């Protein structure tokens, strides 16, 4: 899928993550993570974000995330929402969003 516009999902509340997603200039994925649990879970959060981007076949993302201790399922949910709001109407119909 191609990211066509900038989107934001999530909040800065505890147990949540705020994700800003837009297309990158160089056609590669970039992740900038700021997490309150970076030391313990930074690698795990990056893995979850990378895996979700791969599931959606996205390779042009510039993703900035401020994490406040979100569980994996919430990270995936917020990223899915950000992707959903960033792709074309045609891509929004993809079944991948429901998997």
């Amino acid at each position, binding site marked *: 899928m191609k990211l066509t516009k900038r989107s934001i999902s999530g*909040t800065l*509340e505890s*147990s*949540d993550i705020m994700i800003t997603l837009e297309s990158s200039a160089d056609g590669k994925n970039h992740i900038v993570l700021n997490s309150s649990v970076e030391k313990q879970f930074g690698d795990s959060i990056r893995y979850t974000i990378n895996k979700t981007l791969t599931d959606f076949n996205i390779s042009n993302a510039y993703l900035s995330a401020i994490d406040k201790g*979100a569980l994996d399922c*919430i990270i995936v949910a917020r990223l*899915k*929402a950000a992707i*959903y709001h960033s792709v074309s109407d045609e891509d929004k119909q993809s079944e991948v969003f*429901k998997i």
Partner: protein
Amino acid sequence: MNKLRRTMLFVPGNNTSMVVNAGIYPVDSLMFDLEDSVALDQKDNARFVLHEALRTINYQYKELIVRINSLSNGMGQRDLDYLIPLGKVAIRLPKTDSAQDVIDCEDYIAMIEKTSGLTVGTTPMMAAVESANGVLNAYSIAHASKRLIGIALGAEDLVTDLHTKRSPGGLELNFARSMILMAARSADISAIDTVYTDLNNMEGFRAEVEMIKQLGFDGKSIINPRQIQIIHDIFSPSEKEILDALEIVEVMKEAKKNGKGVISLHGKMIDRPIIERAKRVLETAKVTGQLARIEDEYNE
């Protein structure tokens, strides 16, 4: 006996902290909300949160219900598209005005069940009545689908429709509560009362819970964990009620064995409705664990 539905805790669907922690509260049902507690521009976000959380988090024995958006604007259908394939939630339909609303929702659910490989008919439904039309159609709504497990009162929209407002005694809801209760009993489904929103008036809350228990409701929708214990205390039978019920059932069994037609206990005639009530007390006490505790105490 129907499942215990004494407490149904509202959990706003876009509040991730509440969604992930909802399982710690000792309620009978969790009701995740995609409707009024979620802002219009956050509906997609909340839908994704519930989709991921409900399939990942183990909420143990609790009944999981999702209040969807109305089907009239297309949002309800999108909620169902994401939730039904999970195969683990009941659907609460808001603002149900007629049996046709239930049937329309049921048809859409059946279509998704079919395409998702689920057995058609396995997703339970609840109908929330929140308007004068809904109250007047409560009977046909309650009988509209075999999927229905309950009918609930939504008072805030209803009082607006009635050109009044809520009062501490709930006088304005008398007719609606009675209609919903009769409809629920007629269809043999649960009757769930509306939320009590004044969290600073716990005495008023207690009085309302005692009133709806006396009316015959099965439970109440709640918005705060502080309200749980009061409902459970009021809706659980007392030790005396359980002991009396055990005695009634024992006397009944004895009379049956001896071929006696008329039963009396402590000088009072015990007839069929009294036996039915005693059985219901024991069934409730069994589910709440009170019966096992009492039997343990007496066996020690």
